[in-house]
């Protein structure tokens, strides 16, 4: 922001500081422990009156001097150079606050150099007592250097009271100071032993070599227990959220933590192994190997420490990209490029969008992300995203994962960054292939003679869209299965509902007749739903044509679980297939015919973030690669093995673990139900954008291939959030119910979300509790509000799809399906949804609206028997 950014690609993400710092820290810790090693070994030589030990000490001192002076000291200066190049803002803050700490450290550095030179060059000429004094002074100066630098480093992770007081001493003697000091001191002693192996294994005399190697082994092994105890102390000195982040919620740190845990016994055993009598030519390479392992060991610790500090460079104070948390809001409002001193493209245009995107990347992302480099390669991490998916994802970085700073920029900048990543880094500038949609001519509406026909046959479905996944070899969250309902009415001033001595048949249009040719569901039915099914047969045994089930009670005929897919025989996408229902006597005389849609979609938005091709028709369908990416993400974040299971031919139904109350056959488990889990998790990543968040996944994108949100409410200008609330609230309502049911996982997700609209979101059961139509249409009157949230149906019986009017006619029979309420406007044919009302009253409005009582009653009516406010003109005519 304040400073120019050194534009790096491969070396981005902090690679330079990682390399130089790990290198320096390894040698510098040796330079401390080794100092103690020298003076104690010299004392040992005097004590045992051993010229050999003294000669070894002197030889080791030479090795020590060269290593620590040339490599150690210079790389320490190198760290200084590097931090100012990679994060000048934070460096400036540290320098200006801790200048005198560094100045004191400089005095110790000077003392170290003088002491070390004198120690080595007067070895043998200076009297013993004085020489040991020099040795001790060296070690003390060296350890004091550690003391000082440790104050600054530990401050960065646990600044403690300094955040409030700004006081030097509060920051220096911060909560992590002492445990880190002890940890590093014991480590320094162990390293003295490791490096000692290098010199001691080169000794010529066998017996003496063994003795000295074992002596070095003592240095490695004796502090080990204290080292691990100090590590435990260090871990527990971290604030709980930081500790939780490092050990539970950063998959990137898991390999380093694992490596640290594994290498600990390896090094210990290595030290023991060195105690065994082995020839020098075996021990020397072994010493070298142990040294290398030690470097990796130290590197793992430093990576954990640095990684665990994310998203901050100074915890709680400054983000890794040098932006202060309290400045994010203002920067987002003003615009990042306007706020940054060193931004070239102050205004983003079409010509400079990619270049501006690169600048934004440099300012916000480069401190942690390389481009095609080893550290957090942004190219790899964004491999599957489309522009829409990534733009949405960027708006939510930092929420929930907890280790990224929030995006500090406005929407134009967010899009510029997205385009830079997708179009330039991923070279995805190619135009998307045109979708292969089947948009048929307007369908024939079955005839209805208002004078002479005796029957009215109403047909409807329960869901405005039935969304399924079609990558059954990988996973599924719903098998194919659309539901059809029908009601046969004998027309009369007092109409009669007919369900005896009548057969209702249904037939889906032939273009969609063979779904088994286009999906693998039936091959995996056994794994997914626990039993085999003949091809093209639904889970309740129904095919795509047949006889509707007679009701046991009441009068509604049903055909449930019809295995519809939205693909035609030409492999085009057509999510609104028609079904024709015919009512006839047992003798075969036709009483009535009607036709309606059975909407079904596979336009699931997973590919927006998990991979970028459609499976079918360039329009819809869950591609196997996308499906596997979803599983891979699940495996990484939730410690599962779903990719392996799918590859072995055992795909899962999500609900097999994410069980909810609507899965009647099984009791709920420890995991959140699917709706709570999937919305809860994704709300953290996709929230904040109103209805756009919804149709990143659901097939309601007004520019998409399904456009399922198409009924009267859309026409009057409402969107998903008017009824369902913004995604965060939508998710919170589900999570709160799960929390009340004792599911711990809900706690973490709830904390990560912020309620966007309501101060107090009310819990609700997935699927069973939804917004009640009567919240807005109080007593069926014209609504006074256009938003309802937090007022749920008490249970599933109150849902629109399960309810009836005051005389027992289901709401759907007259009003159509939710999200497609009459009059609906369908992308695949304006009136494709409105066939039933058009058939009976030549108008697309709800059956009987606009005083069309004659449809069933053969005459006008005066009393509002069905529900209040039903006898009037339709309020929103086309």
């Amino acid at each position, binding site marked *: 922001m*304040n*400073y*120019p*950014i*050194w*534009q*790096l690609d491969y070396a981005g993400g902090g690679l330079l500081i990682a390399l*130089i710092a790990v290198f320096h820290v390894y040698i510098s810790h040796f330079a401390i422990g080794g100092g103690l090693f020298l003076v104690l070994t010299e004392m040992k030589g*005097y004590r045992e009156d051993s*010229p050999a030990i*003294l000669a070894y000490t002197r030889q080791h001192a030479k090795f020590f001097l*060269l290593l620590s*002076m*040339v490599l150690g*000291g*210079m*790389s320490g*200066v190198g760290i*200084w*150079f*590097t931090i*100012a*190049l990679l994060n000048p803002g934070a*460096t*400036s803050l540290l*320098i*200006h*606050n*801790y*200048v*005198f700490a*560094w*100045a*004191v450290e*400089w*005095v*110790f*550095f*000077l*003392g170290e*150099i*003088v*002491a070390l*030179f*004198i120690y080595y*060059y*007067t070895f*043998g*000429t*200076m*009297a*013993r007592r*004085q020489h040991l*004094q*020099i040795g001790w002074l060296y070690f003390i100066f060296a350890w004091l250097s550690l003391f000082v630098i440790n104050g600054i480093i530990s401050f960065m992770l646990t600044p403690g009271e300094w955040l409030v007081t700004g006081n*030097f*001493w509060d920051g220096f003697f911060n909560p992590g100071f002492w445990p880190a000091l002890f940890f590093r001191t014991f480590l320094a002693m162990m390293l003295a032993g490791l490096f000692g192996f290098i010199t001691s294994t080169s000794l010529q005399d066998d017996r003496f070599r063994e003795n000295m190697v074992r002596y070095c082994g003592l240095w490695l092994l004796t502090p080990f227990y204290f080292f691990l105890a100090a590590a435990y102390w260090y871990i527990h000195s971290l604030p709980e959220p930081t500790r939780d982040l490092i050990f539970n919620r950063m998959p990137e740190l898991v390999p380093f933590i694992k490596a640290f845990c594994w290498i600990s016994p390896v090094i210990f055993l290595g030290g023991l192994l060195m105690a065994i009598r082995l020839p020098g030519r075996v021990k020397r390479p072994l010493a070298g190997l142990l040294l290398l392992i030690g470097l990796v060991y130290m590197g793992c610790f430093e990576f954990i420490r640095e990684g665990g500090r994310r998203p901050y460079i100074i915890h709680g104070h400054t983000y890794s990209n040098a932006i202060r948390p309290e400045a994010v809001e203002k920067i987002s409002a003003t615009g990042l490029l306007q706020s940054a*001193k*060193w931004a070239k493209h102050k205004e983003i245009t079409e010509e400079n969008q990619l270049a501006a995107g690169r600048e934004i990347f*440099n300012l916000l992302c480069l401190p942690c992300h390389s481009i095609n480099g080893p550290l957090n390669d942004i190219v790899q991490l964004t491999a599957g995203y489309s522009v829409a998916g990534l733009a949405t994802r960027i708006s939510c970085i930092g929420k929930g994962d907890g280790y990224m700073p929030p995006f500090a920029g406005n929407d134009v900048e967010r899009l510029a960054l997205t385009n830079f990543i997708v179009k330039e880094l991923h070279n995805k500038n190619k135009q998307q292939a045109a979708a292969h949609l089947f948009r048929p001519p307007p369908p024939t509406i079955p005839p209805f003679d208002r004078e002479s026909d005796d029957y009215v046959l109403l047909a409807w479905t329960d869901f405005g869209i039935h969304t399924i996944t079609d990558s059954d070899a990988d996973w599924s969250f719903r098998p194919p299965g659309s539901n059809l309902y029908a009601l046969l009415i004998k027309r009369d001033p007092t109409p009669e509902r007919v369900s005896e001595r009548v057969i209702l048949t249904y037939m889906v249009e032939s273009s969609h007749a063979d779904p088994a040719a286009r999906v693998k569901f039936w091959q995996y039915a056994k794994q997914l739903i626990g039993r085999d099914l003949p091809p093209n047969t639904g889970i309740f045994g129904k095919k795509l044509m047949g006889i509707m089930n007679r009701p046991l009670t009441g009068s509604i005929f049903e055909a449930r679980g019809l295995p519809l897919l939205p693909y035609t025989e030409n492999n085009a996408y057509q999510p609104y297939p028609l079904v024709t229902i015919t009512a006839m006597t047992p003798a075969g005389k036709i009483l009535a015919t009607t036709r309606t849609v059975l909407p079904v979609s596979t336009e699931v938005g997973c590919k927006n973030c998990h991979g970028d091709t459609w499976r079918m028709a360039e329009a819809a369908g869950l591609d196997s690669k996308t499906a596997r990416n979803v599983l891979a993400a699940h495996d990484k974040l939730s410690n599962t093995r779903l990719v392996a299971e799918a590859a072995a031919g055992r795909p899962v139904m999500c609900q097999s673990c994410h069980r909810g109350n609507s899965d009647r056959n099984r009791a709920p488990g420890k995991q959140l139900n699917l709706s709570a889990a999937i919305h809860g998790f994704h709300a953290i990543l996709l929230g904040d954008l109103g209805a756009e968040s919804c149709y990143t996944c659901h097939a309601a994108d007004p520019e998409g291939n399904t456009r399922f949100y198409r009924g009267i409410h859309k026409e009057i200008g409402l969107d998903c959030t008017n009824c369902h609330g913004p995604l965060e609230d939508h998710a919170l309502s589900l999570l709160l119910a799960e929390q009340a049911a004792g599911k711990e996982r809900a706690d973490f997700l709830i904390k990560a979300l912020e309620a966007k609209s309501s101060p107090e979101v009310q819990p609700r059961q997935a699927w069973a509790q939804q917004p009640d139509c009567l919240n807005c249409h109080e007593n069926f009157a014209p609504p006074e509000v256009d938003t309802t949230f937090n007022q749920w149906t008490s249970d599933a019986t109150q849902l629109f799809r399960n309810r009836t009017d005051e005389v027992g006619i289901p709401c759907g029979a007259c009003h159509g399906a939710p999200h497609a309420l009459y009059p609906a406007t369908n992308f695949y044919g304006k009136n494709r949804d409105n066939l039933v009302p058009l058939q009976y009253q030549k108008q697309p409005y709800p059956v009987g609206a606009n005083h069309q009582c004659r449809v069933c009653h053969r005459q006008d009516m005066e009393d509002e028997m069905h529900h209040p406010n039903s006898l009037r003109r339709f309020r929103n005519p086309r």
Partner: protein
Amino acid sequence: MDAAALIPLPDTIPVSWGWFQLLLLLTFFLHLLCMNMMLGSAVILLVKQLRHPAQLPPAGRELAGHLPFLIAFAVNLGVAPLLFLQVLYGQFIYTSSILMGVYWLAVVAILILAYGGAYLYNLKHDALGKRRNQLIILVTGGLVAIAFIFSNNMSMMLRPDTWPRYFDQPGGTLLNLADPTLLPRWLHFITAAVATGGLYLAAGGRWRRLEPAAAAARVTEGMHWFVGATSVQLGIGTWFFFSLPDHIRQLFTGTSTLHTGLLLTGCLAALISLGLGLAKRLWPTIGATIATILIMVLIRDLVRRAYLAPYFSPDSLVVAPQYSPMVIFWLALLLGLGIIAYMLRLALNAGKESGETPS
């Protein structure tokens, strides 16, 4: 683009700026003395090696032995002024460092190689055989390259007007080559180092308790280097002076009493040192040279302030007072210097104690 708008905002300082100014000048002066001795020795060593490829003369062997020490102390004494420079002028030095990031970071690598090379040259001198020439070329060449990189950074930090070049070249590969002061600046420092190296060589002659003839020869040789370099320096210094921007140069030619007086005194001291050098009077020459260097350090600081005057001056830094850490520093410095003095005393007396059997 308005260069002034690019200058980052500085942070607060914990004590009054005068303290940092004092510490910066003091530690830079010490660094410069040590760096001059180091670089000068390296140049002289290079010439000696190239002139005597078969057998380095004793004076050269001594310089080779000292070089690693001089490097160590030059670096250590460089850390302190770099620290105080960041406090007073951080927003300038960080920026110019980033603009030339590749080169700046290369300093660390070159330094490690040069330092290691210097040890190798000394410790394995005989075993190296013919490779000695190549090695000393790399070592001295490396140190001279580091000087060039430093000259770039220290001059580019004063030229915010050159910073907008970043927008076309953000990869850390900018230098300050277009600045007319760069070359004379760099050469001025190198030449001064050679002159100081000559004095170091000469002083070694006196110090080392050599035979009078050898000592005198050493002094003569050292003084030749000194006189030669200082004579050349007169020209380079003049070139450097006239490459400065007019308005800054004018400060030193009458506009400001302080500036002009200081420059005159400095030039006078340089001329006096030259005269003393011709007369081969070692310690007075060293005294006059140290005085010259001290005055030049002050002039350099004034030049820096003049460059930055349109944008910034250190007295504008906001103080958020916390004096106790500084108190601790002065105490630590006192204690540290005391202990170092003690250790040096022990070192000088090593092996001289009667009755003590060193082992």
